[in-house]
């Protein structure tokens, strides 16, 4: 049966932007906060896991980062995207959690292998590279590690990274360059 024209043509409501959700949350809209969490949880979890968070603590760290972000969100001035700002808060949460304890954490090879499609040999090689990279990233100085992850894992532009980390674009490029150089040496 054909749908009535008015329903069939009704455009889906555009998803609210992050700034709109933040404004709604500041007005007391809990659903806005929940939407922000749903929208950015995966990216934050990837960032934290990549930066060395123990898998057992990952959910707690993600939650703590969100809580800190919401506590301080009225001071967020939009100098970068909300997600980028959230990731840097995640970096602080992880540091507080005890960076040294998690620095040598190795991503279990099984997780990397079982989650991929394709040739088993290629998957194993990729998983091994990922595990070694995780160790290498954990051994980088904090700023290099965060710049590397924001750039290589999250795909952010240097300008955005610089704004989030309160540094210059040039400095962000240098940190990234040093990080890549050290990681290549570690991976060889």
């Amino acid at each position, binding site marked *: 049966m054909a749908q009535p024209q008015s329903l069939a043509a009704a455009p889906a409501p555009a998803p609210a932007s992050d700034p709109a959700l933040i404004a709604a949350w500041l007005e007391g809209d809990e659903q806005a906060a929940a939407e922000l969490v749903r929208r950015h*949880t995966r990216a934050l979890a*990837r960032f934290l896991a990549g930066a060395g968070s123990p898998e057992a603590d*990952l959910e707690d760290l993600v939650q703590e980062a969100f809580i800190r972000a919401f506590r301080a969100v009225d001071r967020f001035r939009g100098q970068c995207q909300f997600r980028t700002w959230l990731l840097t808060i995640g970096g602080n949460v992880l540091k507080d959690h005890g960076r040294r304890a998690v620095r040598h954490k190795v991503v279990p090879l099984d997780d*990397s292998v079982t989650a991929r499609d394709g040739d088993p040999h290629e998957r194993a090689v990729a998983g091994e590279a990922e595990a070694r990279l995780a160790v290498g990233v954990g051994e980088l100085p904090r700023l290099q590690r965060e710049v*590397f992850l924001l750039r*290589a894992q999250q795909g952010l532009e240097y300008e955005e990274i610089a704004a989030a980390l309160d540094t210059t674009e040039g400095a962000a490029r240098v940190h990234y360059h040093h990080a*890549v150089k050290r990681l*290549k040496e570690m991976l060889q």
Partner: protein
Amino acid sequence: MNEDARLHEAARRLGMAAADKVDVDRMAAAVVERLRSEAANASRPAWFRPAWLRMAAAVLVLAGGGLVLRQMMGPTTGHEAHFVTDDLTDLSADQLQDVLNTLDETLDLGSTMLPEADLDDLDAQQLQAVLRSLEG
């Protein structure tokens, strides 16, 4: 695949497996619940917040413990207010004069408070009276 591409591919996947295990909806519910409870906590009067309640409880425990300890120690020994002059009643005039001289030196009050010339003329009872007045 060259080295750069391999590195970036590995970086892109880094943490993905662990992140995929995080339940997004459960996370959203947990965060909202915490935000709600923090807001409720902040709206309570200061004395009703957990930290203040804990402190109040600690004070009560200490006070109660002190009372119990006092009960266990038994009745007080009847030790009443003690005055130095009670110990001075057995002293002679010369001994009292020495005490006053020592006190005089200790307080460094010199002739302004206790002129020795005047003290020399006092008898034992008068010296004791001076000492009592110094005790207040």
